[in-house]
């Protein structure tokens, strides 16, 4: 209070007049209080949500297995009827077994941890995908942002030139900027190898600048007339694009900079190259990179498809972990393997497995997460979580916690609805050292 009043002593004349006018005209009548009330009613405010905890990670590489990865044939192997023809193998971590489709990952289990008791409420692809990406269930009235947007909203980018979030080889269902500003939306790349489209000036620099100037002249009146957040966002987008085009960091997208041996090690397929690109981008301080591997919806011929898919996944993931580790990047990067739901342990008549939201598995590595751990356990038939049940928000909260994001800080949508990163999920603390 003393400080407060002393502060009042050294008001400038300008400040004094501004304050006086404002109060006389009723401009500030209780606006500070209103803002405060909004913050206080939630118990925390923006400032309070500051460095309560020490972040252990800076970036996320999010490997998304689209279609619903079968947990029984990959991360949570079983014996007997439900296993089908798949055997389990031991791993670098004592007591942890993986499916024989994952030999590479088995060698890296000392740096990765499994979450075997995830359980979701969504059993359809679109809804499950959305839920996994946003921690909120799909609804008509609002679109929720994904983790990439949350990171940028709370902490901004590290590299101001490159986009804060990049999505490689995936659709746009869930995980966009949602109700947040569109500048937080990920840059979507169809394929890892083609780089950023249209990132080269097709004309001379002078001509390019002339065109730019012309465009600005056209826009100016409109911008003045509609000086709003969403309109300004377009301008920001242009500025970002220009900065990217002129940047040295653009070569982060260029996989030809890597040696053939490295490219080969990741696997000569879209997902493998995507993981390599993810590593390059994280190295250039892009904070959230998502790589999608599709085709996991194995209702029929499960074992043929899974052997192929798990092969790509295993090669890319194990190489990625090794590569991140030796560059010291695994210290500050969470690698996460997620999917929308598991698949039925019971093999159907088409030799396939169907949707199974009740229990499935994920993987977390790096960024302060301990290696060689398993959280949660399913029963012998892989059908029920018998220990350490984890909801989808819990899983995402774990990633957010590693990043040091304030889990309880509320961000309001335009319609003033309150949302938090990972919707009240509780991080799995046993995974942190």
């Amino acid at each position, binding site marked *: 209070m003393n400080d407060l009043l*002393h502060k009042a*002593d050294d008001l400038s004349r300008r400040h004094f007049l501004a304050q006086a006018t404002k109060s006389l005209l009723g401009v500030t009548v*209780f606006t500070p209080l209103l803002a*405060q009330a909004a913050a*206080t009613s939630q118990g925390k405010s923006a400032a309070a949500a500051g460095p309560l905890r*020490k972040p252990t990670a800076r970036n996320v590489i999010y490997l998304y297995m689209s279609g619903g990865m079968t947990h029984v044939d990959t991360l949570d192997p079983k014996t007997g009827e439900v296993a089908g023809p798949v055997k389990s193998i031991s791993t670098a971590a004592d007591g942890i077994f993986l499916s024989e489709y994952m030999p590479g990952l088995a060698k890296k289990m000392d740096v990765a941890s499994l979450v075997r008791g995830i359980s979701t409420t969504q059993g359809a692809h679109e809804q499950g995908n959305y839920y996994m990406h946003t921690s909120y269930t799909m609804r008509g009235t609002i679109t929720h942002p994904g983790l990439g947007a949350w990171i940028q909203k709370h902490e901004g980018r590290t590299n101001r030139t490159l986009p804060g979030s990049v999505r490689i080889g995936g659709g746009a269902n869930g995980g966009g900027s949602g109700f947040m500003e569109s500048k937080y939306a990920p840059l979507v790349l169809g394929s890892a190898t083609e780089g950023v489209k249209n990132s080269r000036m097709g004309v001379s620099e002078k001509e390019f600048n002339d065109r730019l100037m012309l465009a600005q002249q056209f826009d100016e009146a409109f911008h003045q007339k509609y000086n709003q957040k969403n309109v300004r966002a377009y301008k920001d987008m242009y500025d970002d694009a220009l900065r990217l085009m002129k940047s040295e960091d653009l070569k982060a997208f260029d996989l030809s900079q890597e040696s053939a041996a490295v490219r080969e090690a990741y696997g000569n397929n879209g997902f493998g190259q995507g993981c390599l690109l993810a590593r390059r981008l994280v190295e250039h301080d892009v904070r959230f990179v998502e790589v999608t591997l599709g085709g996991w919806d194995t209702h029929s011929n499960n074992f043929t498809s899974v052997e192929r898919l798990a092969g790509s996944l295993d090669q890319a993931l194990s190489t990625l972990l090794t590569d991140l580790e030796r560059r*010291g990047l695994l210290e500050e990067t969470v690698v996460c393997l997620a999917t929308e739901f598991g698949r039925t342990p019971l093999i159907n008549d088409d030799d396939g497995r169907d949707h199974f939201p009740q229990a499935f598995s994920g993987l977390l590595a790096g960024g302060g997460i301990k290696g060689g751990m398993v959280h949660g356990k399913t029963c012998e038939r892989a059908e029920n979580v018998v220990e350490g049940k984890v909801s989808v928000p819990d899983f995402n909260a774990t990633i957010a916690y590693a990043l040091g994001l304030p889990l309880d800080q509320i961000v309001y949508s335009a319609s003033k609805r309150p949302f938090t990163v990972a919707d009240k999920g509780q991080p799995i603390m046993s995974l942190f050292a």
Partner: protein
Amino acid sequence: MTFRWPRFYPPVVSVAAVLMASPCLSAAESAVAAAAAEGAEVVTGHLFNSLLYLPTGLVLGAILLEFFAQWKKNREVEPGILFLLFGAAGASVSVAVLAYLFSPVGRASGQLSLFAMWMTVVAAAISAAFYLKRQARSQRLFSLNPAPQLAGRVVVPRTSGQRGLIIGYRIALVLAFLITLVGISEMPLSQARGPSLAQATQSLVQAWGQPESPVRPAVTAPSPAVTEAPSPAAPVTPAAPPSLASLLGAETPSPLAAVPATPAPAPSTPSAPAPSTPSTPVAAPPAPVSPAPSAPATTPPESESMVSATTPPEPPEPAKPAVPSVPAPAVPVKPAAAATPVVKTAAAKLPSNFFATKIKPMIDSKCVDCHGSTKQKGDLRLDSVAAIKKGAGHPVVVAGDLELSSFYQRLITPDQEDLMPPPDKGGPLAPNVIAMVKAWIEAGADFGDGVVATGQPPAVVRPGGVLEEEKSKAVPPPPAAIVDQLVQGGAVIRAMSANGALLDINLTHYEAGPVNLADLSPIAKNILALDLSRTRLKDADLAPLAGMTNLVRLELKRNTITDAGLVHVQGLVELETLNLFDTQVTDAGLAQLAGLKRLQKVFVFNTKVTAGGAAALQKAIPGVVVNLGE
């Protein structure tokens, strides 16, 4: 007749009052932000809460009467309006004074003081309204006098002066009403809890300039969680109220000058760490208490900032959404030498069979249907002591801490969805039952099983966190100007300790010219982690690193650094992680690091380091992992 200017034209007076109040508003605004930073909540007592609504009510009454007076010209009620306005003015002055008195003791001091400012404005507006009304009335009566009421109602045309008075009066009245209404409805007041008049009295006593008097008036609110043991490391208690003398002496007058009823306290010494400030809870030092032997696996969380924050005497916030704090595993906390463990004593001693005789029967009848052997909603079972202690993935009962005990919070939450028992199953429980649970948890949540709770959740921190929290106390916070300048230039800076003294700085994308580590010298001790990847630094540029003795993690990857550069790293004894990937260092350079006994990870992929050099370092520092990338 012509219009006479009164001697003190009231609008002028009220405008002056507002002008005087306004400079303090900006200060109050910043204080509000600061208070918000603590997740503050207004803590006041019964008296204040009930008095708060009086001005609004009285002004509303006056407005209604005014309508009544206009309707069919019921002039007779006009003295009543004046009476109500007089009362309203008095009440708002009282509220303003009380809010000011409470502001040093409440947790949302800034909010309350801002509120006090506005109540001053309200008081001025009401007084103005009162004065204008009286002027208008007396002038009207005066103009009626020459023509006494012979023929019933005589409609005398109003003069322009009268019209002005009436318009001014109405504006002032409506303004006062709106301000009080908006202000009060937006005050997130705690209802009838926490420190009350006794604390206000105490702060008053302080304000009267007796800081050294060892008077300890009884604090009305029982505060069992707060230790009475004075702690040598107790941080600064909330500032004592400023003395009016200093206020009046200030260059800009304070709004309180407009409040006539303010007692004039003698100058006090606010900087003196008042030896006895019972109105403010003794701040617990961030005591690294060794984990409770009772249940280390369910160690309750405590955000790091709370560790150093002042412990509120009355923690529960019913309005808080039932988001339990992040549960954390029990980290075997390294006891830091400087820390004094706080001895916590349960204030109210309950009989050891309290749980068995009072709490258990309540749980059995109210909770076990859904949280028992048949159903385990929310993965929570409450049918045995072990199950209660286990909680639902996070602890539900935390001895001595109501705020962290969701078992209690769910009983009192206003959120119908979170309320336990659910509204359709008999919730909420009777107030006396809730009070019983509260008392039990406050007294240490004794299950009667012989396991004595410590009464305080151990500080939960990330690995090495205790050390860092201790370290952060020893380091003065970085000057904001330097940090701002770095951030402007493109540095990415994250705070790594609750008080913001320790920093993680990433200079990879620094744009404002080449990175010059000498710029960091003023905050050298603040740097816990430093990322210099791809900054084109040369060996000689690394010299300022030697001063960053708190450095735990250093990223030098992708620079043309040689062994000569590592010389500057030799003295960084706290260093745990060193990334030399893609540099020019050799085995000889690595050998220089042998003195860094805390080193855990060294990355030397793509350097000239050989397996032999790595092995040599691993021999010199037991436990270090040298990653050659093979």
